[in-house]
């Protein structure tokens, strides 16, 4: 079992606290979406897990053991990020072979299947590939390595929309065949939300929330209708954001909706809609809307 635990983890860059007292647990065998506005903060969190660095304070454990310099754990964690390949003279084939040497569960056939799907040229030097192609190579290495914990940190950068679709499809397909923990860090929430089982929102160096997507979306609804009726219904609710046009108001709510409230909304003639993860993320993290969840 590769359960991940962060306990009171803090990271500082000089005087600046990048991560503040992070405590979160990620159970083994799920696809997690890590979303947050600041890419560097997400990357910091993930690079801790990948043993690229140590926290200033706090503890990280995987399967009860600290991953840092732990050969058994490190070989089962793969951190895929946008690498700078401008000095990489090796070709695609060479890099795949290198990954195969160090990853105990590397699936060569699957790697070549992905190479075919992404249209990657095996013999071309990696430095001469486009940014999107380099990302496709990273993703190929990440998926084919079949590590217990695979981290894709905005791994799609430079990919065009159809290539990103190939990536998402491959993630779901391979996860179904070989269940393991996959962490997808992204700001393209609307495009990737269907991939996530659970979502972790990171904001200003803290964990804003961690919840299964279904439960989260149940709590995120909007009411639209006459301004005074919307106000009447939402007076005792947590309103994240409102939009007004003429006499019509739309209020975005966060919180479990009781049957009673649903009935009242119907009675008041309000339109009830589920918010998307993207909307919820934007509202939770907007500057004027500092929410404690």
């Amino acid at each position: 079992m590769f359960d991940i635990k962060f306990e009171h983890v803090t990271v500082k860059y000089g005087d600046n606290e990048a991560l503040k007292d992070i405590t979160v647990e990620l159970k083994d065998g799920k696809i997690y979406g890590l979303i947050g506005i600041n890419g560097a903060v997400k990357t910091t969190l993930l690079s801790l897990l990948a043993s690229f660095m140590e926290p200033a304070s706090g503890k990280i454990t995987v399967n009860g053991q600290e991953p840092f310099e732990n050969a058994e754990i490190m070989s089962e964690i793969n951190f895929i990020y946008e690498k700078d390949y401008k000095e990489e003279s090796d070709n695609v084939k060479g890099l795949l072979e290198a990954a195969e040497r160090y990853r105990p569960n590397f699936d060569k056939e699957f790697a070549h299947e992905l190479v075919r799907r992404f249209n990657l040229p095996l013999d071309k030097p990696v430095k001469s590939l486009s940014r999107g192609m380099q990302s496709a190579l990273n993703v190929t290495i990440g998926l084919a390595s079949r590590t217990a914990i695979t981290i894709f940190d905005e791994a799609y950068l430079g990919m065009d929309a159809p290539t990103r679709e190939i990536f998402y499809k491959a993630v779901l397909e391979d996860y179904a065949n070989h269940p393991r923990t996959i962490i997808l860090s992204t700001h393209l929430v609307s495009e990737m939300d269907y991939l996530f089982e659970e979502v972790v929102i990171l904001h200003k160096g803290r964990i804003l929330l961690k919840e299964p997507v279904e439960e989260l979306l149940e709590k995120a609804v909007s009411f639209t209708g006459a301004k005074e009726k919307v106000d009447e219904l939402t007076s005792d609710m947590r309103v994240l954001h409102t939009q007004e046009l003429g006499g019509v108001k739309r209020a975005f709510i966060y919180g479990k909706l009781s049957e009673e409230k649903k009935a009242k909304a119907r009675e008041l003639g309000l339109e009830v809609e589920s918010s998307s993860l993207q909307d919820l993320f934007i509202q939770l993290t907007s500057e004027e809307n500092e929410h404690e969840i």
Partner: protein
Amino acid sequence: MKSKKVFGKVAVDMTYIQSTWAAWFIGIVFAVYVLFHFFSGNVEVYNQSIGSHSFLTMVYSPSKVFMLVVGIISVSSFLPFFVQHGVTRRDYFYGSAISSVVVSAGLMSVAWIVTMIEGLIKSDLVNHSFLGSDASWLLTAVVFTLVIFAYFAGGWLIGAGFYRYGAGGILYILLSILLISLVESLWEFKKVHFLVVHFNFANGEIPMSISFLGTLLVIALTLVLVRVVTKRVRIKLK
């Protein structure tokens, strides 16, 4: 994956890559050596005509520079790659140390073989060893390997210092110069070196056993320093 297996893999992979570089290096030095030999007329090296120097003597100094450079780029070129592939800093350290010993010995062996062949062809080869014309082959081979490995270790320390501390790595250059100078002074038989003066050896020569022991100690110290600097180093995301 067992750690023993992993550092072995690192050693094999790094040996392969560094040997490729070494092959280019020694090929180029050999070409220059041959060209000078046939076309330069009367070129003097170490106050003697180039014709009287063996290839082994000629390649000794460039090999030090080569190994120094290989050492300097080791951390920045290889450590992030290995950590990204789930290899620990410890396995990288052992693998890299082993591969560099192998490459040092490999460079020496090639130079030694070329010089052997050279000895069969040329009768006027006086200075077959950089340790002096009366030095034995075995001694020459061991000292060659040890000294160029010490240069690698010195370079490795500089690279590690810069990787970890950025501009603060400059201090590691000074430290490295000090360590390499120590090794050099232990083998400079013919020159009166500052250490020789300092320790006041009567005949200006350091006993062989001290030279060996001293060199091994300096190498060990340098390796320990490299390990301390890289043990928990943060890997830059590049």
